[in-house]
């Protein structure tokens, strides 16, 4: 029983002492190294995106997109190139194993209502359940940091930024910058 508890604990809090197969870096070894920018276990401080509890497939694909340059970045591309396929999968597993936590953050109730309407008309088809839905194509955005959402929507919106999901580019190009702000407030208000 005691051993089971300790084993559980080690898995739960990461940094397991058990080494992986020879030559394999453990998921916690990889994931813990990201914390300098992404917070402990991916619970980032604003405006870094919270990455804990997102879908494993989504996280792995995003890292691969950064690595190949399919998704532009300031620094993530340079870092992603340091990891092999297996390591990216392992890292994604580490963050996907965490539980999503929506942080407390400020939002403007009027903008939330405006954002809610835009969400219902434009976004709910994919970002179901007011943005809570998460799958291999769709990151959870309900409760994500508002400033991050603003940044990433601006990336999709900017003509000089070539982003991976064409569908997102098309949808966001129809919106005004005020709409993007309202959407960010809406998702920030969701838990």
């Amino acid at each position, binding site marked *: 029983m005691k051993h089971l*508890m*300790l084993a559980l*604990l*080690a898995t*739960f*809090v*990461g*940094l*397991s*002492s*058990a*080494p*992986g197969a020879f*030559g*394999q*870096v*453990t998921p*916690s*070894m*990889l994931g*813990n*190294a*990201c*914390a*300098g*920018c*992404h*917070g*402990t*276990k991916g*619970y*980032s*401080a*604003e*405006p*870094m995106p*919270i990455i*804990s509890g997102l879908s494993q497939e989504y996280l792995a694909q995003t890292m691969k997109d950064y690595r190949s340059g399919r998704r532009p970045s*300031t*620094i993530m591309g*340079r*870092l*992603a*190139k*340091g*990891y092999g396929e297996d*390591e990216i999968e392992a890292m994604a597993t580490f963050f996907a194993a*965490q*539980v999503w*936590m929506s*942080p*407390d*953050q400020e939002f403007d109730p009027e903008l939330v209502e405006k954002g809610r309407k835009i969400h219902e008309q434009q976004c709910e088809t994919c970002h179901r359940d007011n943005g809570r839905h998460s799958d291999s194509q769709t990151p959870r955005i309900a409760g994500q940091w508002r400033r991050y959402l603003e*940044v990433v929507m601006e990336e999709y919106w*900017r003509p*000089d930024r070539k982003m991976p999901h064409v569908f997102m580019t098309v949808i966001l190009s129809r919106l005004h910058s005020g709409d993007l702000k309202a959407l960010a407030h809406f998702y920030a208000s969701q838990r």
Partner: protein
Amino acid sequence: MSQITRRSLLKLTGAMAALGVFGFPPMSRGAYRARVLVVGGGYGGATLAKYLRLANPRIEVVLIERDAQFVSCALSNEVLAGERSMESLTFGYQALSDFYGVKVVHDEVTAIDPVSKTVSTLGEQQFGYDRLVVAPGIGFRWGAIEGYDELATQTMPHAWYAGEQTLLLRRQIDAVENGGRIYIVAPPNPYRCPPGPYERAALIAHYLQSQRKTRCKIIILDAKDAFAKQDLFKQGWGQHYPGMVTWVSGSEDGKVLAVDPPTRTLYTEFEEHKGDVVNVIPPQKAGAIAELAGLTDESGWCPVDQRTFESTLHKDVHVIGDACIAGAMPKSAYSANTQAKVCAAAIVALLDGTPTPDPSYVNTCYSIIAPKHGISVAAVYRLADGKIASVEGAGGVSPLNAIAWEREMEATYARSWFENITSDIFR
């Protein structure tokens, strides 16, 4: 905004805490399987203490730190820029003891005996250990520049330990008249925060510019012929502070050999320079306790097994952070943070008698040139033939041709890096 970390960890570990596995009070002293002593509570030591406790609450972790609070050197150039308060750089050890069960002792270590495995302090305390981690940061080579000693720091601050020195330099810069000359003496390699002196030049220029003192000159006298992110810094200086920042390389007679503190005069081989403000960042070595404990080699730094950070000079003693020799990794806060995690995982395994896990290390160093102009260097590291080496084809510096929006984002990410890394350690 950073409460999330604490709260989520508490939620995650709530069940365990209730069972008394987390935090030490419900267990008797004898319930610990081993004691790890950590000397120094900076970016390296404090991370190590927290991550050891997270990995295995049955390890008793005692952190001995001289100061009641930690003041971050990283981002302290923003204080000189007038863009940040000292308070925002200051962290307490409360969370480490309250949430993670680290026993924090505020005392100064005066001796380490690796044979009897005991540590003695100025407060006449003695601590035994199973494993010791020494994370003392840097020390200065007083006298390496003739005339630059501890007393001289009151006239010509180094500000390479943040705190009073940062504020002293800030006051001196504040008092400079338009047209004044500010010297920064940059040290030879290796030293803490390789891009730091050049970021400092930019942010002092930013401050002077905001005070409309654009006729001031900032002159960097360097012992070296090249420096970190050199092209990006030169581009940024020229773009934001035309004519204000000059860099003099070692081979252009930039190496300062002697100083005269009362007159704020610097002597190179062929010239003398008199400044209104003189910031001397002296040549460096491992923090004093490392040297005293016989953990340093002829280089002045601590040789370690780069897989576990165990000293190659003393068994069961590990050295992490600025003080250790860590292959290709620079002496930075991020390096110390990731070395601490590799070391923590190794210590857990060593105490268990299991093989130490394969390490993976990361470094990211942001520099801020102007409030909306950030640049970075990053790398992923692996162990290759016993040495930490950067993974080929990865990492590197920000592109020279980045658009303004990307520079602005990097400045935002620089500050966000600071929030995240300090949350990862102190909250």
